[in-house]
């Protein structure tokens, strides 16, 4: 207990020091024209944008507030966006108005998308550009009832989100001839808990822990993780429309750089980052708790680390895009293949 308090105390002090440094930095930046680089920003390779109304970016994560978006909340709350001269507003989607709806109507400039989602959108005629890749691994998993193998459930009902994120399971089901019967569901695990589904598709940072929190015993036997298979396709990244990117390259790059810093700080200070996440979670009355968000954050950071290097790489791999495009095209989810160049700026 004493150790815990001590750690918390140290963390709080660290947070205060960082805030003070950032505050000092902000003050120094005041009153400067055009691009001003002070000592700290030089060291961190931060270049402040010249003042412009174009520096306002509305960012909409693809879901309601949770630790999945911790790095952006941290960048906003610790003034990292300000350092780059950006005025970032984080506006979440609602159940009736999704992030992509907001992008389409120009209410938001940037959003987070999974790679396969982004490719579908591009294939549907909305060119999107990846300005920051956060995920290095796939977070999908299938959990079956205790004692069942998720890959050996022919004709069994498997829950899958009605809202999307289904591309990879669908491709795998066809390719591997698994014979799973998909049941489109809303975003919770109730139907699996009530026994009306034989298995359920989960995100390892979200629904997986909802099941654990509901007392479901998950072992290697009844769990299939995509990141341990040939289907380990990268997921979350930050996207803007190509049109926006072409007109706001500096802003887009600055947003990506600041967001990256936010994620790096989050990985180094998970408990303080969690405080910030909980602020957003409570503001939006999200039905979750700190323990679940801590577990989610730990998993998200784990997924951001490349299997080979063990580091947060923030890099979309060309072979990933090619593999995903080929897979989705082969099984009819893409009318035309989407190239790496189409996704990247």
């Amino acid at each position, binding site marked *: 207990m004493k150790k815990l308090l001590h750690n918390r105390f140290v963390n709080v002090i660290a947070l205060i020091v960082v805030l003070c440094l950032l505050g000092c930095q902000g003050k120094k930046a005041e009153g400067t024209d055009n691009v001003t680089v002070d000592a700290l920003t030089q060291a961190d390779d931060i270049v402040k944008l010249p003042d412009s109304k174009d520096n306002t970016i509305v960012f909409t994560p693809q879901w309601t507030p949770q630790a999945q978006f911790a790095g952006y909340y941290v960048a906003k709350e610790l003034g990292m966006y300000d350092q780059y001269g950006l005025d970032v507003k984080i506006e979440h989607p609602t159940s*009736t108005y999704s992030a992509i709806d907001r992008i389409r109507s120009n209410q938001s400039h940037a959003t987070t998308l999974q790679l396969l989602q982004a490719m579908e959108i591009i294939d549907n005629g909305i060119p999107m550009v990846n300005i920051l890749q956060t995920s290095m691994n796939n977070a999908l998993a299938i959990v079956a009832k205790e004692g069942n193998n998720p890959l050996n459930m022919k004709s069994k009902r498997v829950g899958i989100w009605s809202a999307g994120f289904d591309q990879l399971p669908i491709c795998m089901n066809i390719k591997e001839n698994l014979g799973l019967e998909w049941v489109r*569901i809303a975003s919770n695990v109730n139907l699996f808990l009530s026994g009306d589904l034989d298995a359920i598709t989960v995100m390892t940072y979200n629904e997986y822990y909802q099941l654990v929190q509901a007392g479901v015993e998950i072992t290697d036997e009844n769990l299939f993780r995509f990141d341990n298979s040939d289907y380990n396709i990268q997921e979350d990244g930050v996207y803007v429309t190509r049109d926006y990117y072409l007109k706001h390259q500096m802003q887009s790059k600055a947003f990506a750089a600041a967001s990256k810093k936010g994620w790096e700080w989050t990985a180094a200070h998970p408990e303080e980052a969690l405080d910030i996440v909980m602020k957003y979670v409570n503001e939006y009355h999200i039905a979750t708790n700190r323990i679940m968000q801590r577990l989610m954050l730990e998993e998200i950071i784990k997924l951001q680390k490349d299997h080979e290097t063990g580091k947060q790489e923030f890099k979309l791999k060309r072979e990933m895009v090619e593999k995903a495009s080929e897979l989705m095209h082969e099984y009819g989810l893409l009318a035309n293949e989407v190239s790496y160049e189409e996704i990247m700026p």
Partner: protein
Amino acid sequence: MNRLLNYIRESLARRLSLWITMMAALIFIVTLGYMFSASRKAVRNESIAHATELLNSTALRVNAMLEKVKIATDNIDWLVARHLDGPDSMFVYSRRILINNPDLKGCSISFEPYYFKEKGQYFSAYSLNENGVITTEEQGSNTYQYFYMDWYLQAKLRQAPCWTEPYNDYQEQVLSSTETIMSYCKPLYDPKDSTFVGVMSTDLALSWLSQTISAVKPYPNSYSIMLGRGGTYFVHPDSTKLSLQTIFTETLEKPNPQLTALGKAMTNGEEGMMELPIDGVDSYVFYKPLGDTGWSTAIICPESDIFGGFIKYQRVVWIIIAIGLLLMMTVLSKILERQLKPLGRLAYQAETIAGGKFDETLPTTTRFDEIGKLNQSFSNMQKSLVKYIEELTITTANKERIEGELRIAREIQMGMVPRLFPAFPERDDIDLYASMTPAKEVGGDLYDFFIQHNKMYFCIGDVSGKGVPASLFMAVTRNLFRVVAQQELPPAEIARQINDTLSEDNEQGMFVTMFIGILDLQTGKLDFCNCGHNPPVIDGKFMEMEPNTPLGLFGGIDFIGETIDDIEDSMMLLYTDGLNEAENVEHEQFGDDRLLDYMAQNTSTAKTTILTIQKMVAAFVGEAEPSDDLTMLCLKLKEINK
């Protein structure tokens, strides 16, 4: 602590009262311990029965309400099935069910996509009762695809009526409840071909259930909870847990097998009771499933509440007993002190008597119990003691007088033998030394020597017995030797005359062993007569000689004298049996061998020889009491003036 122990130890009354109190305390502890244990079991059983009864009645009330929802739904769904051709009638049915059942929160009759071609992909007739005002609306859109909702899918997949988990259905700009609700969902089938067409869902506000369950409070600090299928808290006094945490949440970071077991039991629909700490408080948890909903309710009763009264009663009893025992110990101590007071006085008097005041008057008592008898016995003992002390005083005075006389006698006796050495300082040829150590104040050993006409007359003797009689006999013998030897008679004649004199009127039958020698200092010739005495050692060996009887036993007998022609440069040791028969604590004797071994190697002077032998004997004897007088005479003729 030591002071307390000493305080207890110094009084018999205190010790006795403490022991009695301790025994009483032990009996009380065992008896009351058993009684409290049995009572605790009874209280526990009673509490279990009470809580179980409450839980059952709560479950009955909840089930009755849930049954009411089922009946209300069943009363309408047949109408829905009969009018599948008229979608607008669904608005009437969903509304009617709420009019007929004001407790219900909402009702939706929803259909599969494109079931009614004219209505498009979505058709759901929904009515909501908001504070008694019923509003009806058609629902379903791209942003609210109801057929993916739990309440729709669950009934569809199960193909049977069921209850959903409590959920929050609120959606902006759409008619929806702001309250958390749970729905009874019933699948709808076309009566013609039994195909699934949609779901009728009837909603109940969680608040109603929450109020009913929260009202169950058998003890002041007890409370009730309700869990959903996944262990989510839907009723709990801590609102921060409601819908946000499950019973397993805290176990994810801090494993708690007991809480996990409770969660598993409840989510598995089991009924029972568990004892476990809840939020650090030892509690009894009584749980029971709510019908076929998959939910479970529990009453959590802190142990301190259940046993609060009992523990209070137990404490009071223990305090009364503790005070009672203290009181008992105090009173008992006083009574015993009073009863044992004569003993105390007696102890004081005894101490005074022990201090020398033998005439101290003992307290008189009229008691005839053990203490009275002890007083009497002590009084008798005191009288006997006084008498004994008087006699002892006289005896001691007599003994001291006798000892004084004996000291004088010893001095006299020691004065009878020559003790000044060198005995003949004018002569360099004679090395002579002698010593006599009586075992008691006076002894029966003797020695003597003198020179007359260039001859040395010497003797050593040992009177039978010890003490005063032997010393008197020794004195007589020594005087006889002086008188007879001065007549320059041969040793055998000296022996004969002494024997005759001693044996006259020797009624005590005492005798003396004696070695008589005459050394011619000019020639070195030794004449001697040994009358039953230990053979002297000469040149490290015992002298060989004729045996004669000791002197004083029989008168008129002759003695055989012997001669050694020359003992020049020979060391001769004469001694009494106090030397070779000296005993140590193990009753071993000094023996002849030690003596001969020493004498065989000895080259020192007569004085050194005797002093060395004395030390050897003292070292051998050690702590043992001297058993006999020890007398030695050592003689060496170094140079002959021929």
